[in-house]
């Protein structure tokens, strides 16, 4: 139950933060007219954040997909997303793409490269779906769109997730979740500083 609530909380908070960001963004994108349609790809990676966060914190199979699905439900039901229920399909694809690299590492390795690949896969898998949905095939811009979106996936949806996870671990709020246990055991394997706890910045550095 605690894990489930954590997933929902992640979805809710990021949904809200995104909404705040969008408030500021909408005016700009309306002003940009057709370029606003392209600009959506720049921020795209932000939608992916929840999945790698969830996987890194809970370290269990399926968590990334579940997190994205719940986030999609929150957007559709509570925030009234314009995309409608089809967002669930997009959420599933995003979760699947983001979780794949971690699954291949059997939920044990969480390095920078793995986060980057996670963002890349998450962004690319869903790209083909949205390209079908919004009729991007046959536009001259297709490759440009894909490039921007993939880059945004790597940066925002991959590397930023790693930064956030490390920062969260340092605050100690994750002390009762699997990620803290993993970092503790990694620390005791190094046989220095027994009982340092998740708040110890040394452990965080070693965690990588």
């Amino acid at each position: 139950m605690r894990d489930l609530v954590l997933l929902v909380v992640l979805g809710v908070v990021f949904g809200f933060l995104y909404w705040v960001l969008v408030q500021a963004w909408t005016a700009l994108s309306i002003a940009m007219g057709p370029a606003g349609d392209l600009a959506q790809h720049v921020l795209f990676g932000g939608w992916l954040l929840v999945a790698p966060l969830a996987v890194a914190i809970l370290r269990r199979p399926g968590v990334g997909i579940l997190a994205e699905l719940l986030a999609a439900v929150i957007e559709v039901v509570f925030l009234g997303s314009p995309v409608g229920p089809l967002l669930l399909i997009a959420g599933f694809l995003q979760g699947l793409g983001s979780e794949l690299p971690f699954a291949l590492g059997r939920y044990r390795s969480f390095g920078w490269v793995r986060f980057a690949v996670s963002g890349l896969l998450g962004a690319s898998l869903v790209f083909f779906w949205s390209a079908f949905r919004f009729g991007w095939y046959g536009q001259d811009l297709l490759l440009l769109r894909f490039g921007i979106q993939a880059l945004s996936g790597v940066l925002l949806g991959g590397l930023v997730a790693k930064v956030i996870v490390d920062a969260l671990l340092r605050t100690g709020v994750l002390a009762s979740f699997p990620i803290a246990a993993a970092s503790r055991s990694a620390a005791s394997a190094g046989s220095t500083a027994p009982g340092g706890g998740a708040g110890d910045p040394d452990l965080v550095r070693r965690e990588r």
Partner: protein
Amino acid sequence: MSASFLGACNPAVKLAVLTLCSAGVLFLTDPAVLAALCAALLLAVVLAGRVPPRDLARAMVPFLAFGVGTLLVNALARPGTLLWPDLPVRVTAEGVRIGAMLALRTLVIGTTAVVFAATTPPQRLLTSLVEHARVPPRVAFALLAGHRMLQTLPEQWTTIRRAHAVRAPLRRDGRARFGPREYARCAFALLVTSIRAGERVAFALESRGLADGPRTIWRPTSLGVRDVALVGVVLGALGVAIGLS
């Protein structure tokens, strides 16, 4: 709210119809048919959903903006027959047609999403999903807790922003700066406090026995003639539209 026809329908049925609609619209390619469908839908929303036209109009603004953007991009970025060869930019007939189609699809799906959100209280929806769609109660309770949390977030956001503004560098007019750095800081603070709160919420839910096991339902939702009528009308309209295009 529940005085309207749509407000009294079963939420799970409404969600299913909504899903069906947004999937069915993908098969429609004729902009004229889509425009007609959109008009009929707007009328139905005002009559059967009792959504005040002003609220509806306000909710439609983002979809309109998105639709116009899609239309323009497609008109300019798609190869095909030229509409106005004299113009310096290329505007193609194919581009305009596809752009109009996509923009109208957005409007149709957007309208259904708006009316769904306006006529469905989340509590009723989750009750109905547990009852009729076999959603695990754990998930439903977690989502409801999340819904409550979402309602308090704007307040927390202002609190955190004010706290941060105390030390923030000032702009020339004397107000605190709020750029991307400040946004990131406040966002992180919000994330940390919410995770803490989430842990307490989970503990509270579990200690009240709201996690697992057999349970009864408080204020069950009903399935009735109304829901059959809703499904029938919507399916009929979609069928006619698909047949025409």
